[in-house]
């Protein structure tokens, strides 16, 4: 394989003779991941962010909706480390509180889009004939649906039932994640399907089939791991997309109630004050950017760790 030139047979006899330790694929993957400096750093960063939004609101004393007209649009100071918005509400508190929702929505929606997309794409890619046609018709349908009226309809139909089943906050959360995920799986499905088309004709798949591997095993063990490239990229791009989609929903009133400060919403509220109070938009923008960055580098590391062709 490229890059894996064997050492000369006469060079290190001792090394050749010594038995190599048996390592499970999971540990091998983790070892390769660890060699990726940026990926490890990003993992730590993400963990810190999750910790911050999880515990932060419990530790930081200021409330998210303490209106204080005297301190409007204040730049960062000791009392308000990230400044305040135009009603005098503390930005750090709002960022920490809203971060819970933004991160959760981003990750959950991404997970759903990836899960559904991969499932549909794999099924379509492996089959021929009517299953592929039917699934592609479904994909085309979702691609043509106008999001907004559908959102209005879904919210109108399901808001009450979800509220009663899960409680008001969790109900809205499930609704939002469902809606964003429902509109994000189509590109993943098409990408995975395309990958499957080209991979299933390759020799190693034929070989595995000749060895008697069943379809499920073919997909799970052989094709899917090699198709992961676009899936991982889609996943990482989707997180940012989900956080931003949530902000658009909030702006249209279809998301969380207006007093919940998700990152996208804070960004949206701050956009008209960009030249007056740039700090208001800077921090949520930075938060989203860092999240996306971290997840992307983790994705890169994952790719390199899991890809059997990479030999680091």
């Amino acid at each position, binding site marked *: 394989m490229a890059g894996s030139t064997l050492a000369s047979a006469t060079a290190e006899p001792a090394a050749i003779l010594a038995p190599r330790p048996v390592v499970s694929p999971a540990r091998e993957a983790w070892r390769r991941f660890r060699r990726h400096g940026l990926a490890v750093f990003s993992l730590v960063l993400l963990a810190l962010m999750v910790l911050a939004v999880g515990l932060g609101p419990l530790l930081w004393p200021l409330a998210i*909706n*303490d*209106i204080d*007209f005297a301190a*409007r*649009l204040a730049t960062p100071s000791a009392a308000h480390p990230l400044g305040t918005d*135009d*009603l005098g509400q503390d930005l750090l508190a709002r960022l920490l509180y809203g971060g819970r929702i933004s991160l959760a929505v981003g990750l959950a929606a991404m997970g759903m889009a990836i899960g559904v997309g991969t499932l549909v794409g794999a099924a379509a890619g492996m089959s021929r004939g009517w299953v592929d046609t039917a699934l592609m018709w479904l994909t085309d349908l979702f691609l043509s649906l106008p999001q907004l009226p559908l959102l*209005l309809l879904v919210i*109108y139909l399901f808001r009450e039932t979800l509220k009663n089943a899960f409680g*008001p906050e969790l109900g809205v959360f499930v609704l939002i994640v469902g809606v964003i995920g429902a509109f994000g799986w189509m590109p993943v499905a098409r990408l995975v399907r395309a990958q499957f088309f080209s991979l299933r004709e390759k020799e190693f798949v034929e070989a595995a089939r000749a060895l008697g591997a069943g379809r499920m095993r073919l997909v799970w063990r052989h094709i899917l791991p090699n198709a992961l490239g676009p899936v991982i990229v889609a996943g990482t791009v989707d997180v940012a997309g989900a956080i931003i989609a949530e902000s658009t929903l909030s*702006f*249209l*009133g*279809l998301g969380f*109630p*207006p*007093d919940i400060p998700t990152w996208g919403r804070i960004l949206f*509220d701050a956009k*008209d*004050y960009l*030249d*007056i109070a740039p700090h208001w938009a800077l921090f949520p923008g930075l938060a989203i950017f860092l999240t996306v960055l971290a997840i992307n580098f983790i994705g890169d590391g994952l790719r390199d760790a899991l890809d059997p062709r990479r030999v680091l």
Partner: protein
Amino acid sequence: MQEENELREWLEQVRSGALPRRLFLAQAAGLGLSLPMAAVLLGSAGLAGAAEPAYKPSKRGGGGPLKLLLWQGPTLLNPHFATGTKDEEGSHIFYEALARYDVDGNLVPVLAAEVPSKENGGISADGRSVTWKLKKGVTWHDGQPFTADDVVFNWQYATDPAAATNTVGYYLGLKLEKVDALTVRVVFDKPSPFWPETATVQLVPKHLFAPYMGAKSREAPANLKPVGTGPYKFVEFRPGDMVRGELNPNYHQPNKPFFDTVELKGGGDAVSAARAVLQTGEYDFAWNLLVEDEILKRLEAGGKGRVVFAAGGSTESLYLNYADPVAEIDGERSSAKSRHPLFSDPAVRQAMGLLIDRQGIQNFIFGRAGIATPNFVNNPPRFRSANLKPEFNIDKANAVLDAAGYKRGADGIREKGGKKLKFVFQTSINAPRQKVQAIIKQACQKAGIELELKSVVASVFFSSDVANPDTYGKFYADMQMYLVSQGRPYPDRHMQRFVSWEIASKANKWLGVNLSRWHSDEFDKAYRASETELDPVKCAALFIRMNDLACGDGYVVPLLFRQAVSGLGNKMVAPLNGWDVDMASLADWYRET
């Protein structure tokens, strides 16, 4: 009433010359009448003075292009089908009406030769008819003469039920007759105190629309290529995007218009529209700037433009539901037969009233665009009550609730008899409104009342969709807030929102205009009396009484008297006002050199 007598005395003195106008205005202010309002009183007594900036240019044309920015583009150009102000703005570039309003709510003749009044015999003594004399020599853009036939035709066109026009409301309870080629008479079914009913309807030409009445009205080619009498002739129209016009060389007023072409662009949002006028000067006028005053002030500081505030009659109010939004009676929630379990207690209403920080809302959100007020009717000033005194006092609210027996529970929310003070507060999506909600919620929290905030997409909130539970007509919430526009300088339609026969209910598909479900026998009596009262001073007193009844009971909580906010380039001169569409006065706009 005492005020009535005083006012009458002073008017007589002005008429006889014993009292200068200026002093009358000052004295009237002492009674609580504001300037424009007192001026209107003078006007209705036949003593009006000039209120608008004088038109200076001495020749027609030469002003270059006029660029207007509306952040909602007009989608059609037939005034009888206008679905919103933006459409009326678009069509008013080309069409005109008999008269238009000025800042004080007085009429200024446009296609009429003069404004009818008792003195010139225009208004009949019994109040049942008004005679309009039309201007001589007015022609449509295609050269045809403008005559009384056109005016009468517009009435027939608008009231044809098959056409389903939006202007039919202007012609209710009256009919038009042609007296001669230049005279039209409006005859009311019963004596009406508000006679300028049809004065501001934009007029379309009979010779182009007669073949397209009723069901064929949407096929008229003139719908998309308007031919009017206005200062500009039609050039191009792209629905939702842009309207263009060029100078009308045969315009019936001399030396007007000043600009050679006019372009109206639509789309985008209010903030960037403000920027386009106030920061970059790309446009000369921006309409309806629903923007926080903080931002407007900073933009104005650039010195390229200014923000103009015009008082109309719009009131932003909070409504506490008179009925019970949860209980279902005869398959209907918020039914007029039910009463709200918590708001029916006057102590709760009083406490809610004490928790509204109108001044804070005015100072920090609306600024110059909204004036804190406890009154539902604020303009013209002769109808504004001076009797209600609002107060913002959280401690007092707490005291009132304590005295009424509402004890705080473990979660800090007050309750009595197992009922918690928890309310759902709904309004439409609109950044300033969400901020108002946040402010009220916080004040309520400090008094042990919890508000759940709900915001609904505007096109759903204001729709008349029978199946939707989120409309403001259904009012399936405890509190709601929105803007109500008075529409013209006479508060009859405004006050109709509190009469008992207009309560929105399942029977009338929630199309009744009384959405708060509040009503009272006294109010109904006063309203009926005002419908036929011809004496303007008695009428004003009746409306003030109605205002006090509605707002004093605690269910109707007016918040702000909202001004119409526009952006104008620095050298632009335009007589904008809150009663009429901005484009109504387009002929009088010019730019100083």
